[in-house]
């Protein structure tokens, strides 16, 4: 009987979706950014989700066989999009190259928006799971009352 596992796993889902939301915000904010520390225009970022065995504290790890079946989610990497930058012909722009083209980030606003909605819904699903676990734990506390 451990509700902390369910809560911990759902919380990992919340954290992962929030991280995804952060990268989407970054993508939308930098939709016109032409300079980055690495050089060149901003490249859209994407999170990588990975399922990992739920980590317990050290004492439990030694005494109890960790349950491989219950897996939490973690953002293990943030990758840059490999799409080529968008070249726009703007000869008057000070950022333009010799041929008069400015390299803009290849970010599709619609794509970012739909990803944002997806992240929001997934976040809500995890919140529902936490709510259900909490209700169950609370009613378990009332046995025999």
């Amino acid at each position, binding site marked *: *009987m*451990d*509700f902390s*596992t*369910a*809560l911990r*796993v*759902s919380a*990992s*889902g919340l954290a*992962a979706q929030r991280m995804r939301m952060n990268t989407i915000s970054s993508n939308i904010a930098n939709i016109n950014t032409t300079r980055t520390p690495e050089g060149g225009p901003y490249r859209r970022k994407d999170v990588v*989700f*990975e*399922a990992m065995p*739920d980590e317990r504290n050290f004492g439990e790890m030694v005494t109890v066989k960790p349950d491989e*079946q*219950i*897996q*939490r*989610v973690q953002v293990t990497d943030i990758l840059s999009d490999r799409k080529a930058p968008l070249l726009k012909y703007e000869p008057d722009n000070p950022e333009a190259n010799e041929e008069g083209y400015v390299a803009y980030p290849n970010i599709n606003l619609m794509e970012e928006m739909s990803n944002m909605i*997806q992240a929001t819904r*997934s976040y809500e*699903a*995890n919140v*529902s*799971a*936490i709510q*259900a*676990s909490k*209700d*169950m734990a609370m*009613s*378990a506390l*009332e*046995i*025999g*009352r």
Partner: protein
Amino acid sequence: MSSPLFDKTTSVLGSSINFRSLRQNITSANIANAETPGYKAKVVDFEDALARAADLEGWAKETNTTDPDHYVIGSGSVANARADIYDNPDVNVTNDMNTVDMEKEMATLQENSILYKAALNLINKKLGALRYAATDGGR
């Protein structure tokens, strides 16, 4: 667990509550990993094992073994019932090889929560009946 005070019903309900909390953990993990590429949705199967164990409960006392190497028939008591956890075979695979069906998981979550509370209510009723008897019929 069998005592004159707490009968088979209580122990079956107790096991059922334990299994439901495991199912809650697994379903939460499925929901958290709903967008993890390659993740396979898991299901917890315990109803049949528990029903079988409940049928066999009490048999161990009635069968005699003449050799210590003999298996005791009906040794599967409620406390020994095990839940099966496996990858759900009844799924649609998406492009990223993830098999989590969010609607199904949310439905499982709510159903599990309701049945968990139902089992708790039944335990409370049992305890209420005991209390009624212990207080001499409420006097």
